[in-house]
Structures are given as C-alpha cells and as structure tokens.
C-alpha cells in the first residue's frame, strides 16, 4: 500500500525533474522550473522518510537523527547560499556539487559494510561505482572550489596526465580485486580504491586553469549525477535513477555546449592545455609594443560627445565589483543623449552568463545587453568602445594568429569601432595569459586603474562636461 503510494510519489518526482530541467533551459520559465523541481525533490524526500519500507517491510528508523541532519543541512545550506556574492556563484555550485558527491560516496561506504557473504555483481558494481565516481567528484569539486576562491594555485608537473591515467587504471584494478578478494582482505582493497579515487579527483583538477573551471565543474556535476544513478540502481529507486541519469546526460551535453561557447575541445580542457598557463599570467606580460594612455577627462569628453558608446564588460569588472558604477555611467551618458549598449561575450568573466548575472544585478535593462553576433555587426557605426576589465574576449589574435592558444575563439571585434578605450590596471594579460595586440593599435588608448575607481571618476567627469 504505502509502497505503491511511494512509487507514485517517486514517479511524480521524476516528472518534476524532467519538467524542471526543461523549463530551466528557457529564460521565461527558468525560475518556475527550478521551483517545480525543488517541489518534486521535497516530495520525494518526505515520501521516503514516512513511506519507505525495506525489503523486510520495516519502516525507516532513527527519525530523530534524520530530521536533525535535514534541519542542520537545510539551515546551513540556505544561509551560505543566501550570503554568497553573485560573483562567487561558480564556487558555490562547485561546493554543493562536492557535497552531493560526498553523499554518494558515504552511501557506498556504509553499504559496503552492510554486505554479508557473497554479493550480487550488479549491486557490487553499483556500490563501487558510486564510491569511485562520488569520491572523484567530491575531491574534484573541493579543489575546484579552493581554486575559484583563490585558495589554491594551479599545479602541473611533467607527465601528469600519464600519471593520472595509471592512477585511474589502478583504481579500476582495485575495484575488481575487491570483488574477487576473500572477505578478509576485501575491505583493505576497497578502502585503498576509495583513497586512490579521492587522490585522482585532486590530481584531475590540479592542472586545470581557472578559466576552464566552469566547464570542469559542469563535468563533475554530471559525474555526481551518475553517482546518484548508481544509488538508484542499488536501491532500485526510480527517482534516484531517473534524476541521476537525467543530470548525467544533461550535464554532459551542457559541458560540451560550454566548451563550444569557449571554443575549447573538452579533451584539451581536461588536459588543461592553456588553462594551465593561467597561473603563470604575470610572466608573459609587459613585453614590447607601444601603447598610448588617455586621461580621465579626455575619455569622459570623447564619450559625452559620442553618438553611440558600447561598453564591453569583462572579468575585471566582476572582480572590481564595478557593475553598479558602470550602470551609473550608462545612465548619465544616456541622459546626455548618448546611445549606450553593452556587448556581452558568452565567455566574458569566469562563468557562462557571468556578465548577464552581474549587470542584471545592477538593474541594467535587458534590452541594453547585446549578444556577440549583434554587437559585432554594430561596432562599425560605434564611436567609442569602452572595455572594462575585458581582455581575451577582445583579443584579435583569436582571429589573426593561428599560433595563439585562443585562436578560433569567436571574439568581440571592437577594432571595427572608431575609438577604443581600455580600462585595466596594468598591461598584464588575462586568463589565457597572452599578449593582446589590440592594446597597441593606434585607435586604442589605455585608461589604467581599478575598474570601480575609474568608473566613479568617469561619472564625475562626464557629469561635469
């Protein structure tokens, strides 16, 4: 009886997951979708607590512990995620993803201890897969989190990838050994496998550059999905199975789509080809070429008398938290009759849609944001392009220099505009860690300083003129 009600509850949950994900991928319905999925999740959770019956027909016990855990997790989760700054979102996602991985991992650990005598192969696979994938995604996510929040630099050493592959092979071997070993030493192998999986997760992430993090997080995300699905197989639980696989599949596709947007192949994201150099940014910079600077007042002047100004926000704007000031400047210029729009590069910043989230946070009107294609067609009749802490996304090398690591990535062709004003703090390169010839072009002039500070001054100056 209650068992069949539970099946229906799980069925509903699965449906809400599918619907939720579907709605999440359309701007109008996204938010509703998220809530729907959340609702289904809640249903599934409480359904399980009150209706689940184990094989021998017993209900779940230890309810006190359970609710304790739920409340604790619930409160912590809400607080953290309400507090976190918009710009720290990727870290957050990564962190929570890690939690899910850890959860799957722990389940496998416990289940392994509950095994008595010979175990059905299918179940063992589910357990050990859950353990391995869970651990990898847990360790990986934590490293990703540390990196994104700047607590951990990229580390890469010669033959790292061969090392990783070997490590992975050993893990598989461990899993097989555990199954065939006699009960006495099975645990030994099992925990070894566990440890190695954690290790692999760490090494897997170490070399990957911050620029590639979102992609990798999305990858780990789909991994966790698969881990959850293992649980679903283990408990023959449809909600877990469908939810897990759904995320596994969608996540994988999403990862690929992200790579496309950044013009990277998944493979060399994982091998961390250029992301790797990221840490080494400083090194490359300050080399040759002549660039001219522009004074605040001149910059203000040029913009106030322009017909069309396009603002190109980048990572720098985000770190400087200058979005509000930027919106300020936009309003002032608009009052002066200048047409101001924003050119949004899909991978500007550190996460996809980073700029949209950022500017939306500052109440910038949706209509003012132009996607890359439209922006590029608009530049030729633009008087001034104001680049705020963007670099790679406006680097002509992506078009002109086949040798460049970012060659082929679609960019904002700002050099089509009459004048280009670039705000950044120095001549240091961006995440790709490469020189940007744009800065040395005659029509470009640099406006050094922290984005926020500069924008405040610009506002003042423009008001003045």
């Amino acid at each position, binding site marked *: 009886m209650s068992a069949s009600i539970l099946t229906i509850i799980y069925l509903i949950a699965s449906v809400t997951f599918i619907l939720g*994900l579907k709605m999440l991928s*359309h701007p109008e319905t996204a938010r509703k979708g998220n809530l729907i999925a959340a609702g289904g999740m809640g249903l599934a*959770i409480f359904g399980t607590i009150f209706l*689940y019956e184990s094989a021998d027909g017993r209900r779940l016990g230890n309810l006190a512990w359970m609710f304790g855990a739920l409340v604790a997790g619930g409160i912590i989760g809400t607080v953290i995620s309400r507090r976190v700054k918009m710009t720290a979102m990727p870290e957050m996602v990564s962190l929570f993803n890690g939690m*899910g991985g850890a959860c799957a991992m722990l389940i496998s*650990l*416990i289940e392994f201890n509950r095994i008595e005598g010979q175990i059905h192969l299918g179940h063992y696979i589910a357990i050990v897969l859950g353990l391995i994938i869970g651990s990898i995604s847990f360790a990986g996510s934590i490293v990703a989190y540390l990196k994104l929040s700047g607590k951990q630099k990229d580390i890469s050493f010669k033959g790292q990838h061969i090392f990783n592959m070997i490590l992975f092979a050993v893990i598989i071997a461990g899993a097989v050994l555990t199954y065939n070993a006699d009960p006495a030493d099975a645990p030994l192998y099992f925990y070894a496998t566990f440890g190695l999986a954690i290790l692999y997760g760490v090494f897997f992430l170490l070399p990957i550059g911050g620029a590639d993090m979102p992609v990798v997080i999305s990858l780990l995300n789909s991994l966790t999905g698969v881990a959850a699905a293992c649980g679903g197989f283990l408990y023959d639980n449809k909600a877990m199975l469908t*939810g897990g696989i759904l995320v596994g*599949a969608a996540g994988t596709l999403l990862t690929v789509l992200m790579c496309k947007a950044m013009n990277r192949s998944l493979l060399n994201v994982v091998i961390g080809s250029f992301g790797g150099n990221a840490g080494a940014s400083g090194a490359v910079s300050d080399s040759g070429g002549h660039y001219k600077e522009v004074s605040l007042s001149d910059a203000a002047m040029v913009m106030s008398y322009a017909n069309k100004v396009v603002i190109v926000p980048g990572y720098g704007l985000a770190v400087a938290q200058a979005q509000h000031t930027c919106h300020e400047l936009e309003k002032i210029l608009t009052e002066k009759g200048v047409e101001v729009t924003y050119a949004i590069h899909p991978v500007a910043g550190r996460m996809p849609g980073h700029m*949209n989230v950022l500017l939306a946070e500052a109440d910038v009107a949706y209509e003012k944001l132009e996607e890359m294609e439209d922006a590029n067609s608009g530049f030729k009749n633009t008087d001034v392009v104001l680049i705020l802490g963007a670099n790679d996304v406006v680097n002509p090398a992506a078009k002109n220099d086949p040798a460049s690591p970012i060659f082929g990535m679609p960019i904002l062709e700002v050099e089509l505009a009459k004048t280009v004003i670039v705000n950044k703090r120095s001549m240091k390169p961006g995440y790709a860690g490469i020189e940007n010839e744009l800065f040395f072009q005659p029509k470009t002039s640099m406006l050094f300083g922290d984005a926020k500070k500069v924008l405040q001054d610009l506002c003042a100056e423009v008001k003045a003129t």
Partner: protein
Amino acid sequence: MDPILNFFYEHQQIIYMVILMIFLGIEVIGRVPSVLHTPLMSGANAIHGVVIIGALIVMGEAASDNYIALILGFLAVVLGTLNVVGGFVVTDRMLEMFKKKRH
C-alpha cells in the same frame, strides 16, 4: 558474452529507462541559450541531490546502536541536504537576476 547478454535480459527495463532518460536529458536542454548555462548547471546540480534519498535509506535502516553507520549516515544526509537546499536556493537567486530583466 553470455553473462552480459543475460544482464541485458534481466535488467532490460532499467536499461530502457536509462537510455530514455539519456535521450530526454539531451533533448530537454538542447536549445539552452548560453546565458542560462550557469543557472542550468546549478539547477541540474540541485537535482542530483536526489542522492539524499539513498542517504535517508541507509541511515534509516541502520541499527540504532551501529554508531559508525549512524554517524556516516548523518553526515551523508547533511551533505545531501546541503546539495539539495543550497543548489535550489543558489539557482533561484541567479534566476532572480534574470527575472529582473523581463521589464
């Protein structure tokens, strides 16, 4: 060979479901605009928090004197809840931003 074939035979239902879900997962987000990549990732992230059900089950089935299991289970549930709650809240916050745009 044979065992694999039998595996297919025994678990055909599950296998079907898995394959169908894979198709659905791909179809469903097929046309997502790059603007929504992050919220979508975050939403998906929340959904795989469904793994918490497993945590609830192990913890609920643990003998009430088996402290290792209880503690690990407790941890698992906490972490799972973090994944679920955190995931959905973060996603909602991100989308709130987009909401604003709609006028």
